[in-house]
């Protein structure tokens, strides 16, 4: 039986200079994306320079056979890049994306020395696309699309340069048709722009309508970033409060971008003590932690959880040092100088979070559903022995009666009771952001429940907390941000100022603090659900950028970093071997050459360099002699070049190389 040979059909040698320029440009675009978005400079820039050299080498040697030594060297370099990648990714606590991108960039750099055929060029293009894909993980804005478009143009350019030129296709642009199409598309786009409601661009209220808010506006107290919370003293928010009597206006500016596998509430500060319309925290203790918080420092995983998901936050405006994140947290990495965990499980830092800062958090997807919660018994004693969770404050008798009445028929279990109250608030009260002030002397809860019957999230949440406490169920106020504009395709949420939110955390015997949201228009049970099955599925966790954290770091500490010196040593050894083999070959070749050959050819090369134009590969020496030079030659030199050309022709095509003395004579005349 004849052996079956699996072989790709031969790909033609790529001789199109423009095509190769497009391949290099595509790579440059990809590297630019990594530099801009990944803020990773060293490897991309070195690799870009190497690739430029590689392209020149590949182009000049495209007609030659591939030498075995070079192939071995390139293979060695690929392995070195792999070793570097492994070392880099085990050391990278923040995620494997940049190591992957760097690896792909190094691959392009190495293979750029071997871009012989059209297929090789296409491979380079596809790796560039992969690099762009990786850079997209860090891309937070629309200009990334421009880079993508540039890449596509490079691909089209390469295709045109390579295929069309070969086929001699005459491509002409039907100007009229293109102009009509472009004009039509533009007109359609303008019409569509006006017809489609621009929800995200709408201000939260027309300027005039929101003017009444200005009456009670107390600028010195408003925090533009955490609008609901009044910060005083410690920027970590330890002494902050939520005052129901007023609130600042909320704008549309993005506060942060969140790359996340699941949309969730980004929980910040938690308050448990309510007094005269003001929420404060009763416990001020905290523990100091390192920027990387491994799971062992955090509460155990919730039972029957649905796995974990990763969020990467990118701060867009100066924010107080509160690490907003989905709860419960499995582990987190926040590159700040000091990380503290307060008594409510919120992470803070005394620093201010600056624009551009990122941190990443791994959170559990808790298995909190209506049926699960229905099994939990009533809790009437406060968790952590903290009486504040049951403190009823100055809740009026009317309010208490209302709570009793609403939950009267729904007390078969705690969950049903909580939901009855939540639904009641959601259905009978109106959500508004245009609320006046609480009249002096009136209790804010009574004012909300019985007078205006409308309010914003703090009113709803505060009322629910107090009503639950009046029924003997431990509850507290949680603040932070709602999901924001979540794009499931990009796995990205844009969180704006107006997404600042407040909700309720209710203690359930078997599930701990469960988020509940009484504000109309929000899900009553606010625990993170399964929005994106893929993100929570096991396979996703194999991809490094979805599973930041402990396992990789452990590997790194085990000494996988040793792969770096080993890889470098291998690469060095291979290079040395190659260099040695090359010199040996040169020497033996020089020994075999007829005397005068090397000298003459070297002189010929020198003359070409001096004339400022090298002989093109298809050009014969005679054509070079008659061809155009950058500057006209003086007569003497022209004669010399003529003699040299003749000598080269005689040598190369008649085998009669000149005596070395004759070459020396020519050389002397040159200088």
């Amino acid at each position, binding site marked *: 039986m004849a052996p079956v040979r699996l072989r790709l059909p031969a790909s033609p040698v790529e001789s199109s200079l423009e095509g190769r320029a497009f391949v290099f440009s595509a790579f440059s675009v990809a590297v630019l994306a990594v530099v801009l978005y990944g803020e990773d400079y060293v490897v991309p820039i070195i690799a870009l320079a190497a690739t430029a050299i590689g392209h020149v080498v590949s182009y000049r040697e495209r007609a030659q056979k591939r030498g075995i030594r070079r192939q071995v060297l390139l293979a060695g370099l690929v392995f070195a890049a792999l070793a570097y990648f492994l070392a880099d990714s085990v050391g990278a606590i923040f995620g494997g994306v940049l190591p992957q991108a760097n690896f792909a960039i190094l691959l392009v750099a190495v293979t750029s020395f071997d871009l012989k055929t059209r297929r090789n060029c296409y491979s380079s293009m596809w790796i560039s696309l992969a690099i762009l894909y990786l850079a997209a993980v860090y891309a937070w804005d629309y200009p990334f699309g421009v880079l993508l478009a540039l890449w596509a143009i490079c691909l089209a350019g390469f295709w045109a340069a390579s295929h069309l030129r*070969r*086929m001699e296709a005459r491509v002409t642009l039907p100007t009229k048709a293109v102009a009509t199409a472009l004009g039509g598309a533009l007109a359609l786009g303008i019409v569509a722009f006006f017809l489609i409601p621009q929800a995200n661009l709408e201000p939260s209220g027309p300027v005039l309508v929101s003017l009444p808010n200005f009456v009670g506006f107390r600028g010195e107290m408003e925090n533009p970033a955490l609008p609901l919370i009044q910060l005083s003293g410690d920027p970590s928010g330890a002494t902050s409060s939520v005052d129901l009597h007023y609130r600042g206006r909320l704008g549309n500016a993005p506060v942060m971008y969140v790359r996340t596998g699941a949309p969730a509430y980004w929980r910040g500060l938690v308050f448990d003590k309510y007094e005269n319309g003001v929420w404060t925290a009763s416990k001020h203790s905290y523990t100091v932690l390192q920027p990387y918080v491994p799971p062992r420092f955090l509460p155990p995983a919730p039972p029957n959880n649905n796995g974990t998901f990763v969020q990467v936050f990118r701060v867009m405006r100066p924010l107080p040092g509160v690490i907003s994140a989905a709860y419960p947290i499995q582990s987190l990495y926040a590159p700040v100088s000091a990380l503290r965990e307060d008594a409510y499980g919120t992470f803070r830092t005394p620093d201010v979070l600056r624009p551009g800062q990122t941190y990443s958090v791994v959170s559990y997807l808790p298995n909190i559903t209506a049926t699960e919660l229905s099994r939990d018994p009533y809790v009437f004693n406060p968790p952590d022995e903290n009486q504040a969770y049951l403190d009823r404050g100055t809740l009026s008798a009317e309010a208490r009666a209302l709570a009793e009445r609403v939950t009267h028929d729904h007390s078969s279990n705690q969950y049903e009771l909580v939901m009855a109250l939540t639904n009641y608030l959601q259905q009978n009260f109106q959500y508004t952001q245009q609320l006046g002030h609480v009249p002096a002397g009136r209790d804010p809860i009574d004012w909300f429940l019985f007078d205006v019957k409308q309010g914003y999230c703090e009113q709803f949440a505060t009322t629910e907390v107090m009503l639950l406490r009046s029924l003997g169920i431990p509850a507290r106020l949680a603040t932070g941000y709602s999901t924001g504009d979540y794009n499931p395709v990009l796995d990205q949420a844009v969180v704006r100022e107006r997404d600042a939110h407040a909700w309720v955390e209710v203690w359930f015997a078997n599930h701990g603090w469960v988020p509940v949201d009484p504000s109309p228009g929000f899900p009553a049970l606010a625990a993170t659900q399964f929005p994106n099955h893929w993100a929570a599925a096991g396979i996703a966790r194999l991809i490094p950028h979805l599973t930041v954290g402990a396992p990789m770091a452990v590997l790194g500490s085990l000494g996988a970093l040793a792969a770096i010196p080993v890889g470098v040593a291998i690469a060095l050894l291979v290079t040395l071997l190659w260099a040695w083999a090359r010199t040996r070959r040169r020497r033996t070749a020089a020994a075999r050459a007829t005397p005068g*050959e090397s000298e003459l050819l070297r002189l010929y090369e020198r003359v070409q360099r001096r004339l400022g134009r090298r002989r093109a*590969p298809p*050009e*014969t020496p005679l054509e070079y002699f008659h061809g155009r030079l950058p500057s006209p030659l003086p007569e003497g030199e022209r004669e010399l070049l003529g003699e040299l050309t003749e000598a080269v022709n005689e040598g*190369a*095509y*008649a085998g009669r190389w000149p005596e070395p003395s004759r070459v020396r004579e020519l050389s002397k005349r040159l200088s």
Partner: protein
Amino acid sequence: MIVGKDHVVRLAAAGLVAGGHVLLQDLPGTGKTMLARALATSVGGTFRRIQCTPDLLPSDITGSSVFNQKDLTFEFVAGPIFANFVLADEVNRATPRTQSALLEAMGEGQVTIEGVTRMLGRPFFVIATQNPAEFHGTYPLPESQLDRFILAAEMGPPTNAEAMEVLARREHGDPIAELRSVVSLPDVIELQEGCLRVVAAPAIRTYIVSLMEAVRSRPEIALPASMRSGVYLQRAAQAWALFQGRDFVLPDDVKLLAVPVLAHRLGMRGRAKASDVLQEVVSALPLPPLRQH
């Protein structure tokens, strides 16, 4: 003698020295026949002309045996092919059968008539002229027969000055009558032998082979150049080098002859012109490295 067509004359002479046969193609009245006659006359030797017509028979070319009633034997009467220079005028007007008889003689250097093989003259040189195939009443030569011509040249239209010159020379008669032979037949044979001694270095062979391969890889070409064409290219380049007073072939010679030697044998797809494609291949094909060791 021939005004303004030095290059074509040189090509035809190179074909003679290289020991091949030459095909001249162009419109009627551009001087094909005149060139062939002038070449034949200036070399000396016997010259015969075959005017090809559709009713021309193979025996009209090769000759045939005629019954001699005096001594009751068949006597061979040689046809026009038994000459040193044969001008096959308008070869594509002859029927394929006649064409093949002629071309067979060209290929073998001998003819076999009624079982007797007769050698042709030495040197034996055929110049065939051909009108473009679009003209009525023509039988285009098949590719296999085109392949037997070492090179094909086009006369091309004369410039105005050239046309004036032609008219001036013809004012008082045909100047071809005054033409004398300048080389003798032994000279031609010596030149042919000298041509074989011209060196074609390994680099030139590499260059020719890579040229053939480059031509073969062009998608516009349906029928690529045969091995024979490579041999002819080398031989023609040797002859050309000899003309230039060199005893070795330069890549420039190969470049210059690539179109005349190869263009007429290539079968093209679509409307591509063989000479354009060849020109493009030649101008993009890298030379083998100058360094041989």
